[in-house]
């Protein structure tokens, strides 16, 4: 029998809450207890399941994911993927047996974890994050009959689907929002480990800020980690102390430290006007404090949605092996939440969004393209 996993339970709880919050009109009557939230998810699930028809238990399709070192409860990237898998299961009315995750504590765990999943014969095994590139390539080569997915990287093999994101587009919108909101004329960006993916965030954000006002300073720093929240807190402390009033992080679990720092500052000085911009998931919940909420907005990365849609695609039309599915604003694979943005700011964001969609604005993918 499947025992409920602690992390899964937590993840479900928060995801339900986030979903509810996302839906806007529902947010008002969402109570904050996890049980209620879970119920709501189930409700959502049932609704969709009904739409799809009741006879879904026959579906013999299961998917699994291998986390990167951040773990499934990183409140960011991996968690978003796991939430997507849960949604996918719910939408088909499938039980928890059809989805699973394998937690990696170290890079050397990737391959054993992949092999565990292979032994369980999942239809698609997703590697969450660019760190799994080599592991997925190796294992896909050794197991040509199995199907794999990789997020944020491209593997050109017939049994691997690559899911990538134009994160720079969402980051651009975050930059616009930050530039429009800042009072001090100084904002901060904290990256995890610099590389192709995080470069997109940095480039997009800086371009977005510059798009509004060239004179706004953007402090850039990298944590060198996606897991160490204490480094995130240190960097955020420096940035806020230096006068930045908005910090955007693209650093996975490191970002938890950024939220902690902002909360500490607000609790000691409630008049401080500081904000955090969340990443990958709607991180509004992380910004709750006694006097309100300090998550200005979050860039969304539809990791969960991409998994959901690729799994559906595989079920309906066959596995999109060898394809690279790139999700951008246009595909609604990335987005910016409304969050605590004022109306004028939101208007500016909407305007920029349109500019990108129309091709009037080209968002750079790497800082050196700026």
């Amino acid at each position, binding site marked *: 029998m499947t025992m409920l996993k602690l992390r899964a339970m937590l993840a479900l709880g928060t995801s339900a809450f986030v979903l509810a919050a996302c839906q806007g009109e529902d947010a008002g009557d969402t109570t904050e207890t996890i049980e209620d939230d879970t119920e709501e998810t189930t409700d959502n699930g049932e609704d969709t399941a009904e739409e799809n028809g009741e006879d879904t238990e026959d579906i013999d399709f299961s998917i699994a994911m291998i986390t990167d070192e951040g773990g499934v409860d990183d409140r960011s990237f991996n968690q978003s993927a796991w939430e997507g898998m849960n949604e996918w299961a719910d939408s088909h009315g499938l039980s928890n047996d059809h989805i699973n995750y394998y937690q990696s504590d170290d890079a050397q765990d990737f391959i054993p974890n992949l092999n565990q999943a292979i032994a369980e014969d999942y239809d698609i095994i997703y590697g969450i994050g660019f760190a799994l590139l*080599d592991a997925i390539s190796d294992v896909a080569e050794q197991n040509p009959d199995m199907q794999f997915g990789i997020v944020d990287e491209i593997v050109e093999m017939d049994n691997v689907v690559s899911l990538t994101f134009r994160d720079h587009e969402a980051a651009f919108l975050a930059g616009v929002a930050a530039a429009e909101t800042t009072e001090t004329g100084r904002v901060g960006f904290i990256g995890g480990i*610099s590389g*192709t993916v995080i470069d997109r965030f940095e480039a997009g954000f800086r371009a977005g800020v510059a798009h509004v006002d060239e004179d706004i300073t953007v402090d850039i720093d990298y944590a060198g980690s996606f897991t160490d929240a204490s480094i995130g807190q240190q960097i955020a402390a420096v940035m806020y102390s230096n006068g930045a009033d908005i910090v955007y992080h693209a650093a996975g679990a490191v970002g938890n430290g950024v939220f902690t720092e902002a909360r500490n500052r607000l609790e000691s000085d409630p008049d401080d006007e500081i904000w955090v911009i969340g990443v990958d998931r709607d991180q509004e919940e992380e910004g709750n404090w006694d006097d309100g909420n300090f998550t200005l907005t979050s860039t969304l990365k539809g990791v969960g949605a991409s998994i959901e849609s690729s799994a559906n695609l595989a079920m309906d039309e066959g596995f999109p092996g060898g394809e690279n599915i790139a999700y951008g604003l246009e595909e609604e694979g990335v987005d910016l939440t409304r969050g605590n943005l004022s109306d004028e700011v939101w208007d500016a964001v909407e305007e920029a969004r349109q500019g990108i969609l129309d091709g009037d604005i080209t968002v750079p993918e790497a800082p050196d393209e700026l």
Partner: protein
Amino acid sequence: MLTKNNEKLYNFLVPILSIVLGFIFGAILMLFFGYNPILAYQAMFNGVLANPFFFGEAMRQATVLTFTGLGFAIAFKAGFFNIGVAGQVLVGWVTSIWVALAFPDLPRILLLTLSLTAALLVGAVWAGIAGVLRAYFGTNEVIVTIMLNYIALYLTNYLIRNVISTGGNTTERVGPNASLRVDWLTQLTQGSRLNAGLFIAIIVVALYWVFMTQTTAGFEVRAVGLNRFASTYAGMSAPRNIILSMFLSGALAGLGGAIHGLGTFGNIFTQSGLPGVGFNGIAVALLGLGNPVGIFFSAILFGVLDVGSGFLPNRAGVPDEMAEIVIAAIIFFVGANYLIRFLFEKVKTKKTATEGGE
């Protein structure tokens, strides 16, 4: 007074008891939180031992842990607490990959020798820094090696991003000429990453034993470690031996890093933290009580635990956190075999203490 046989028996019993206690404590923890420990341990051992792939992975892990364990042990013998094994692993790892990528066309035997030797030397120098500082300036090696760990971490990440690769987080894969993989091992273990490092580890275990027990240099290292003053009186040079042992410690760790790089991964990627094999090597060494063969077997145990813990969530319903706590508890008891030693010692002194005079 303990006779020789008793002493041997006792040296054997202490680690066994530590392991048993660790498992019992882990079981109690699981019971307390409502999980079935028997099912869990079954999943763990079945998962690893009944499947060639996972057994291969456990042995691969044991290979690296043997190096880090031996590395820690040799410094420990000389009275040194080399907490910097992790950093030395990392510098060894990055060096081996760098060399392997720089000379891709050399013949395999030459390239492997070159890569491993370079890693060994860099690891040795890295640890040697702490040794020199300690020997000549009395600097606390624990603090120095911790700082060196962080320098190693950020230096490695810098090198990967800016020197070895161009802006990426991962280097290229080394060519087959620099890989430690051997086909028959891979096939035997159904595709695991177990590699020729295992044989190097076994050779090093033997060399370690020879060095420690059969050579004058090993004699000096042991004597200095056990009693610096008496050794100095006897004409040995304490600083020289401190540096030598630290040098060898780093060499072993660096070699372990190279085997991790050329055997396990075939490349290096930016690290968010120091490799866990470095720190687990400490526990491996303590469990093995500094005996090379003991270290080899405790490395295997740790390899099995490490790989086996992956089975707890999906096969026994024990959540990851719980699995990690259980493993940590086992490691704790294993590391705390000093506690068991202490208890033994207490019983022993009660039996044999003679009181009088001075």
